[in-house]
């Protein structure tokens, strides 16, 4: 008995010592929460993304000693892609560090919907790079949402552009059948209004086909596709749903090169489980693709050479790893921009929001950062929280992703009215008075 009691006491003492030593952190630190998912059905895609984010923050600390001397402090919280867990993580992390969270990046459209109102109240920007609410492009209404580099409405337009190009012109779209196989969640439903607008404009027949979470059961959906024989199938999937879709397409002999995935359905974990069946499958690119760029040399030198990497060195050129890095970079650059105005110290979420809204990355700056070839210039403003609407298309050749198209830009004349309409509805529902973007500096 006595020995058990002593062991328990010693363990308690050790834990207490660990507890006391942990928060002995300097005050000159910028806290950035990381909401990630490394477990559950979406872990195959969530983990490489989180690794890219973590490694890039570490790179800034190791190589530059932080952002202008302000070290980045991070804490990860596992959401499992579940909305309620994500909200819990947000509440847990939002006020940590000397100034609270600089911004939040949930990597889930469902969590984004749940947090949109909370982040505006707490004055913490929510960066949703390539996902989130498409209407939040309108910064006048959504002051704290930043769907950087592309919303799902931009993605829908880019996908239809690619189809038109393959068919030989927009006039060839008339009378064609295009189906959307989507993850039945806010994520998958986001592109539907835009696709309906496009269907009306170009005269193609649009059929949305939902797939229930987590997406391993798609037999009936593909049976419907086999009967309907659409000319193209757009895939809006995530996690295990993507590779399942490819396998099911092969099972009903639907040509893989007539499938176009969104940029969340175009990474290595989406195609490799399907083996040879995935050859020919296409996907949009959120500007960047797989492969190594100048920044990877620094990652290898400062992180992996020192054994501080969060994944295997062979996996740092994957699509989602790169996307994590791009996302982290944009956040860091926003903080850097905000430091120009508010001083080189830890900043609050409200100050970082200013930095995000005034962030401009030129080609020269992108080259300086080592992201040349991954990104086109980004220019964020009050009325445009998206910042860029470029995309390319890549194709899986059985071994690697190959870029098969030039850069194209989403058609703003179609997206803008929809954004204005839907965001105005949100503003009316929530009694938000839109800011006057002409007066913002």
């Amino acid at each position, binding site marked *: 008995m006595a020995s058990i009691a002593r062991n328990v006491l010693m363990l308690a003492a050790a834990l207490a010592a660990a507890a006391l030593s*942990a*928060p002995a952190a300097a005050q000159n630190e910028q806290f950035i929460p990381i909401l990630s998912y*490394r477990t559950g059905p979406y872990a195959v895609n969530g983990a490489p993304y989180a690794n890219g984010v973590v490694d890039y923050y570490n790179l800034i600390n190791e190589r530059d000693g932080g952002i202008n001397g302000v070290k980045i402090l991070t*804490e990860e919280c596992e959401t499992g892609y579940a909305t*309620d867990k994500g909200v819990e993580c947000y509440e847990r992390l939002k*006020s940590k560090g000397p100034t609270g969270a600089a911004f939040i990046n949930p990597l889930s459209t469902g969590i984004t919907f749940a947090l949109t109102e909370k982040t505006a109240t707490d004055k913490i920007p929510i960066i949703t790079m390539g996902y989130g609410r498409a209407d939040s492009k309108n910064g006048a209404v959504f002051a704290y949402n930043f769907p950087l580099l592309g919303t799902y409405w931009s993605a829908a337009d880019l996908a239809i552009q690619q189809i038109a190009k393959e068919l030989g012109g927009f006039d060839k779209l008339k009378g064609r059948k295009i189906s959307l196989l989507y993850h039945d969640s806010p994520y998958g439903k986001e592109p539907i209004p835009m696709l309906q607008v496009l269907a009306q404009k170009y005269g193609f027949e649009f059929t949305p086909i*939902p797939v229930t*979470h987590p997406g391993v059961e798609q037999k009936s959906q593909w049976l419907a596709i086999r009967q309907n024989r659409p000319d193209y199938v757009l895939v809006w999937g995530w996690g295990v749903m993507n590779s399942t879709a490819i396998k099911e397409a092969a099972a009903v002999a639907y040509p893989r090169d007539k499938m176009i995935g969104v940029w969340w359905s175009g990474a290595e974990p989406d195609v490799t489980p399907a083996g040879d069946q995935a050859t020919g499958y296409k996907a949009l690119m959120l500007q960047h693709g797989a492969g190594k760029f100048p920044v990877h040399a620094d990652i290898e030198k400062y992180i992996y050479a020192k054994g501080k990497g969060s994944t295997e060195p062979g996996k740092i050129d994957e699509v989602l790893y790169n996307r994590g890095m791009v996302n982290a970079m944009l956040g860091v650059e926003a903080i850097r921009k905000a430091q120009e105005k508010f001083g080189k110290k830890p900043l609050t979420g409200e100050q970082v929001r200013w930095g995000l809204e005034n962030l401009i990355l030129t080609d020269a700056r992108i080259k300086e950062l080592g992201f040349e070839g991954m990104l086109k210039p980004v220019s964020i403003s009050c009325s445009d929280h998206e910042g860029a609407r470029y995309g390319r298309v890549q194709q899986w050749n059985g071994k690697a992703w190959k870029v098969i198209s030039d850069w194209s830009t989403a058609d703003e004349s179609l997206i803008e009215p929809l954004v204005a309409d839907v965001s105005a509805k949100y503003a009316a529902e929530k009694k938000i008075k839109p800011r006057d973007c002409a007066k913002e500096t």
Partner: protein
Amino acid sequence: MLYREAGQFKATYAEDMAIFPIRQDRIALAVLLGIAFIGVPLLASFRIWPFRTDYLLWAILLPFLILALAAVGTNILVGYCGQISLGSGAFMAIGAYSAYKLATGVHIPLAWLGFAIAIPPLPVLASILLGGLMAACAGILFGIPSLRIKGLYLAVATLAAQFFFDWAFLRLPWFTNYAPSGSVNAPELDFFGMIVRTPVERYLLCLLFVTVMAVLAKNLVRGNLGRQWMAIRDMDIAAELIGIRPLYAKLTAFAVSSFIIGVAGALWAFVYLGSWEPLAFSIDRSLELLFMVIIGGLGSIMGSFIGAAFILIMPIMLNVIPTELGLPLSTQTITHLQFIIFGSLICYLLIKEPHGFARLISIGKEKLRLWPFPY
């Protein structure tokens, strides 16, 4: 010692039939309510530890209160009336979506009759209560099979309710007011001109609902109706022989239980989530509620609260503690550990005490009453 009831005489029938006949229980409850109604809001508004941030209020107490209410509802059906239900999540969803529709105005065009049913937006309180009522109606409807089928077969029938409503709220755009993403936003929480916004206000609102409903439920289960439910649970044929109508007893259990669950669902959506999608009320939620009442104790109102606390708070604690202590574990490992430890705890508890926390507490109470010679 402290729990001795010597000297507490019951001179009237009313005293004998009181909800809490023992004085110590009454004091304990008063202290608990005092802490919940006065202590917590005070600490929170002055930001005194552990309420320095909103975390405890927002992410722990608020969901705890609402899920405890839902667990009380589930316990009435499963614990008191013995009808296993896997549809609790669906009834929460009905409460939430009905309240949402009523609060934003209902419009049903009946083109073939040449007119439309239109209800203007109702106040939030009315919407929440009517949301509960709608859930009660659905509960009665899906309770009808319980007159024929029992046990696990009934569980499967209620599972049908779960899948049907999951499907309906996901697929029929009318329920979500044609929101493009299928995710809907709660209206502003306006209670007779008082707008509930801050976490403390939200907490007090939920606490009020939970207290009132729990007291009502507690009274119901020790009255005529509750005894009918328990008779049906213990042996339905015997109950029928002594003159209890199974139709009435079972359907009232379904109605009362669904009403409470529906109100909890509306609160979950309006007060806690603010913006939600049908996934918030999936089959996982139903199972969670069922586990809450099984772990907490079938047939015990207090057990529902303890079960809710255990199922909701324990995983979060297991997840937070390693990070707070600064142990060098990856989030992945922590999450796996959380599942392992939580799973083993449930196994251990159910082996040691299959009747749940409520039974543990009542055993403890008995021993305290007989102190210093408990047996």
